[in-house]
């Protein structure tokens, strides 16, 4: 005797927040049942394990059906398959978390231009009240569906989003302690977003945000992931291990907004994910700063004058100036090679951050040094490439600030 078929379908789709999270985390149905039992749902309504199992399976199926829609969230606004009507009383609005509300208001106003309300009830069953049921249910789910684990994304960052990488996911899963299912979902999300924005024109972050109805923060993170994947930045080397995803995401943001084609002219039709080739060519001109002996000495003396007495590591700075300057400018000059673009971060660490660290510079020292290093170049009479220099150093400076930690 066995249950062959067991379904429960409501005219209003019932979704349990807790089960949704378990599903997203890639738990199997049985695991989810176990977690729920430990959570004490059984005490409600005198449920038995069978009841819980049946309910969990129903929920999982619902999520799987939703998943198709979640893949192209823009369709969700007018999908007909699920219905979440405003059946809860409006007065309950006080209960919802303020942040989520603001976020959703923002979202909704952009797409529908009218007031909405929603409701977030704990314990589990999740209800959203709005004048427009669908979108809200979707919005909240989306945050979750497209959310990712930083540890996981750190592993795949800069890798090609290909089948090959997907095959390695079980290793990553074992390493990061994220279930394989969840890894796959996150990986597929990256891929999906990548594929969609690849063909879109206009600003990357905005494209992601509109197409996938994501929050600003999440859209920026996705932009970073897409950007890294597209340029195949090396992030996996041992020397880079100390950097978190958020560090890289910040750097990516800097690169996107300053070094891509879109940075100069956002009306341009080119994609936001590729670096500005012209700019990279121009970077070669910076070489003069290290090849011209006079310029180099002049630059050094300007920086040293400005720094003297302001830092404990002045001696080291003075001694290392030429090395460090050569390091930074060589990185710039080589960026025309795709291979060297990939090594951008490792180069930064090897050529600049590590020497400084071994000299025990503090973050403040670093800031001081780079500020003066950048600004002094403006005073050099014979140095004509001020614009390129600023564009380059602006990004490098903020990247190094971000990356200079233990």
């Amino acid at each position: 005797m066995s249950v062959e078929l067991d379904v429960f379908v409501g005219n209003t789709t019932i979704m349990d927040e807790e089960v949704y999270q378990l599903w997203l985390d890639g738990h199997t149905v049985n695991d989810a049942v176990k977690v729920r039992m430990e959570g004490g749902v059984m005490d409600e309504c005198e449920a038995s394990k069978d009841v819980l199992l049946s309910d969990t399976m129903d929920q999982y199926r619902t999520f799987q059906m939703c998943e198709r829609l979640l893949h192209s969230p823009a369709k969700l606004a007018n999908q007909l398959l699920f219905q979440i009507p405003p059946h809860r009383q409006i007065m309950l609005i006080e209960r919802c978390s303020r942040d989520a509300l603001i976020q959703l208001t923002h979202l909704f106003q952009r797409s529908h231009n009218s007031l909405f309300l929603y409701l977030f009830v704990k314990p589990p069953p999740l209800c959203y009240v709005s004048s427009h049921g669908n979108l809200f249910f979707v919005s909240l789910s989306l945050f979750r569906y497209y959310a990712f684990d930083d540890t996981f994304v750190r592993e795949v960052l800069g890798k090609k989003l290909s089948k090959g990488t997907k095959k390695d996911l079980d290793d990553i899963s074992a390493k990061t302690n994220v279930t394989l299912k969840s890894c796959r979902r996150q990986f597929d999300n990256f891929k999906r977003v990548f594929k969609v924005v690849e063909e879109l024109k206009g600003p990357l972050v905005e494209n992601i945000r509109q197409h996938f109805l994501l929050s600003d923060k999440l859209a920026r993170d996705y932009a970073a992931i897409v950007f890294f994947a597209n340029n195949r930045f090396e992030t996996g080397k041992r020397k880079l291990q100390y950097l978190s995803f958020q560090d890289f995401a910040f750097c990516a943001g800097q690169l996107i907004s300053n070094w891509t084609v879109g940075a100069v002219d956002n009306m341009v039709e080119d994609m936001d994910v590729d670096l500005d080739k012209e700019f990279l060519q121009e970077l070669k001109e910076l070489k003069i700063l290290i090849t011209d002996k006079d310029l180099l000495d002049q630059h050094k003396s300007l920086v040293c004058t400005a720094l003297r007495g302001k830092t404990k590591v002045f001696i080291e700075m003075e001694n290392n100036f030429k090395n460090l300057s050569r390091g930074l400018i060589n990185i710039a000059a080589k960026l025309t090679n795709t291979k060297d673009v990939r090594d951008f971060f490792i180069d930064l660490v090897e050529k600049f951050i590590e020497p400084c660290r071994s000299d025990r510079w503090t973050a403040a020292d670093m800031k001081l040094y780079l500020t003066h290093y950048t600004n002094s170049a403006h005073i050099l009479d014979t140095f004509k490439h001020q614009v390129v220099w600023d564009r380059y150093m602006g990004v490098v400076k903020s990247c190094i600030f971000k990356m200079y930690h233990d």
Partner: protein
Amino acid sequence: MPGKLKAKIVAGRHLPVMDRASDLTDAFVEVKFGNTTFKTDVCPKSLNPQWNSEWFKFEVDDEDLQDEPLQITVLDHDTYSANDAIGKVYIDIDPLLYSEAASVISGWFPIYDTIHGIRGEINVIVKVELFNDLNRFRQSSCGVKFFCTTCIPQCYRATLVHGFVEELVVNEDPEYQWIDRIRTPRASNEARQRLISLMSGELQRKIGLKVLEMGGNAVVGYLQCFDLEGESGLVVRAIGTACTLDKLSSGSAPNTNTHMHPNTAPASNACNSPSKDGKEPVFVEDLPSSSGPPTPFRALPTSSSPPPFSPSKPCSRQSSSSDTDLSLTPKTGMGSGGSAGKEAGPLRTLLRQQTQTALEQRGASSSGLLLNAREFPFFTLTSFPPGFLLHVGGVVSARSVKLLDRIHNPALGNTRSYKLLDWNSVTADEPETRDAWWEEIRQEIKSHARALGCHAVVGYSESTSICEEVCILSASGTAAILNPRYMREGCLDIGCTDHRFEEPSPPNCGFCHIPYDELNMPFPAQLTYCYHCRRQKVPDVLFTTIDLPSEAAVAGKGCLIQARLCRLKKKAQGEANATAISNLLPFMEYELHTQLMNKLKLRSMNALFGLHIQISVGENMLLGLASATGVYLTALPAPGGIQIAGKTPGDLSSEHISSIQKRINDTIAVNKELYQINPPELAEEGVGSPIPEPRHRSRLFRSHSESSDELSELDLSHGKKDAFVLEIDDTDAVEDIHSLLIDAPPPTGFYSCNTENMPGISNWTSGVQMFTSVRVLRLSNANLTNQGLNKIFTDLCENLLKSFYFKLRSMIPCCLCHLNFTVAVPEEELIQVTVTAVAMTYDKEQTQEKTAEKPVNKGSLEAEEQLQFPLELCADSSSSNIQTASKISGVGESTNISPRAASVDYGSFADRCSTWLELLRLKAHTIRRGSVKTSRRTQSLAHSVSSLERCSPLQEGRSRSLRSSRSFGGSSVTVVKMTPLSFLSGTRIIKYLGIINMFFIRETTSLREEGGVSGFLHSFIAEVFAMVRAHVAALGGNAVVSYSMKECVFMENPNKNQAQCLINVSGDAVICISETDQESSASTANTGQTGGGGTDGAT
């Protein structure tokens, strides 16, 4: 050519990718009606095509308009090969054919493919221009309104009820045509969908014609069913109640009931003509030999010769009559002479008897007593305007086992093509056969009703269960006496009500009074004087198929009561099979009835409403499921307890028995508490009128060996013996008692019923969740006993209920209403249970207040009813506010309304104030809900409420803006609510847009990939919901009422990775508006009224 149909294809969206190379689709649309087809241009390379086509015009007969659906096919253009179909949309244009319904169908429809499911959506606009046709020989019946709702629709008034209409049409099932062997599953499914759509249209048209003939303008309680008879064809049949309905202007709509109340009851009694002499003898002849059940089941008198299955004698007659049919079945070699020889004797007697009865009936009708013999005084309605229903006799039911004739299928194989050629000539006779079958059953029902002294059958329904070539036809209803005032003359034979009712019976107990003659009772029943009026006799228990009349006085709450039963049967073919089934049926009915009765007692209740007994046939077993809503009617005597008696003291120790007895007594006590059954005991002693027969507590069942004569007298009547004595004579009996106690009560905060109204709860809040659940169980153990099967089946149903409670726990306090269980045996070892129901939230506090006010003081009732009218008005006209409020303050002292009373001086202000109060009330409700979970939140909420209270109506501006934003906020997808009930809590229906009747087939050849059987069915049901919602929204509606899933046939073949499912759903598309916006003050006022005076739930 009296009609012009116009269709315009606007756009598509979310289309599937049909061209892998470009990841795009070149879509175009074919629009077909009848034999005319139009095409749109191809919209190249787009998944969201904009066609914006011209208006395609079809000039057609209105007959076709009624029969045919508009068929829209979306295709992908392919230059080199055949165009691929993406999917189809069938649009039933019937709602456009009557003036009061929808005027245009316009909206996004899911594009449906029977293999892939929903594939994108298409935006279509459809209009109809209808020219008047006064041809009296016309074949169409445009203009007749159809309602699935089994009561008078909310915004209508019934001026006349004409009576029963029925029709059936037959065709060959495309799935079984020879061509099915060469065409694709898709083509076959589509042929089937289209055919059924056509047949439904035709059926509706034919019924409409009958209604026009009768002079009516609407069909209420329209029930359409399919019989998938396999090889022998496809039957679509429908029954309904023809009425003349008047649309009420929206202002007076809510007062429908008040109109007819309360003067109708006395008037009706005055109308009752004294008995007619010619009528009586028929009954006198019948009654003495009758041994039918006290109230619940009524069967015809039995023959004198004791048949082999005596215990359930009265029932057996019904099924035996089918045996007679079997023996008449032509052509087949297995005659009844050999195998059925033993039973031939009694059968023949029965046959003779049946003929006699029929003759008698015919005689009666010819003598003019029945003005219209062909007409059945049946009503598919289950609830009635107050005063309509005078007395209720009890449940009448009839079943018959038929062999689906194989005339059209003389042999399998090649000859089938011959059959097809011959089909037209065959179909001509076909409906006749089926008609005759139903006619026979209806006659039987009618005679049962008459034996109960009733002239009508209400809550009437028909159903079938088919397995291979055996078919069980069932019909059931409630015998009743109706108020002839509402009837067309001659529709009812009113002669049989007699002069016993000289005094007008009060509305809240009148329907309980026995309609039959006390001295010539149709069966031995135990009568007492009505506990309400003390004037008329009432039975001790009352079983009905209708809803609890709104005016009925009840104590406590109702609850779902189910009897479940499995019976194994040997596999057999043809007649032997049919005989075996008909032999089993009476036993099943008997046991189901016993279970129901015991469970009723166990809950300390005395009446069942909405009784529905389904018997489903499979290859090797029969399943019986009886569902009803138990209730304590205060007019009926209190039920006695259940007593356990050991037959042979040696077997089981007396301690054991007493322990069981104790458990039962405890359960009864717990249930009394649970359902808050506190009948007005005082009234009983206070009036002290004589109760003719004291209730016996301990009369014993005689058991088998004593005397067979007495056995034959045994019937379904427990009442006579106060049959709450359960005898333990073997282990089976112990099992039975245990299983009685298995039924777990619903968890706290939940109630359940299978009727429209939950007895004891009326203050619904707006939470509504309709759901469908399907569970299929595979019995792996081949050597199951009846007992084991029963246990499995019972557990299956109980577990389903438990699942519902768990899933819907966020809605607590709530009630599962209209729980409709359907059982089937799709394959040899499978049991399928399909449930459709609605969960509705209610305001708990109010209910408790109300129950606390019980027992009801009936004297105040009238005053309140008079009040009701102005109360409801006060929302609309502020001018009446002063008057209203003063009245309120007169009636109720409840603190609830005192702020309102204070504000009466300012008309409009009072209105606003009440809005604010409503808000406050809802807030309070919130707190209660919150308090269960987190106390901190509650506090903060409570704080906010109290602050709201302090600043009083000034706050109103803000809250009102919130409110309006909720109801008028724009949305791109209309929210469509669905409910199996005839109403939506918290809203008022302002317009009926037409009937929704949809049939879908879904098939898959990649079952595993779609998530197995559960995944497949889950998405199919979700898709069906989506399509229903889309059609309703396109009609301009926002809700479906009286929704039901008539059919859910699921077949699977996991080895081939295939599955197929057929679903038929129906309901009424409506526009409803929120009551809280319009009538907030009225609802608050009613609350106050309830708190102050206490009503019986009539509001």
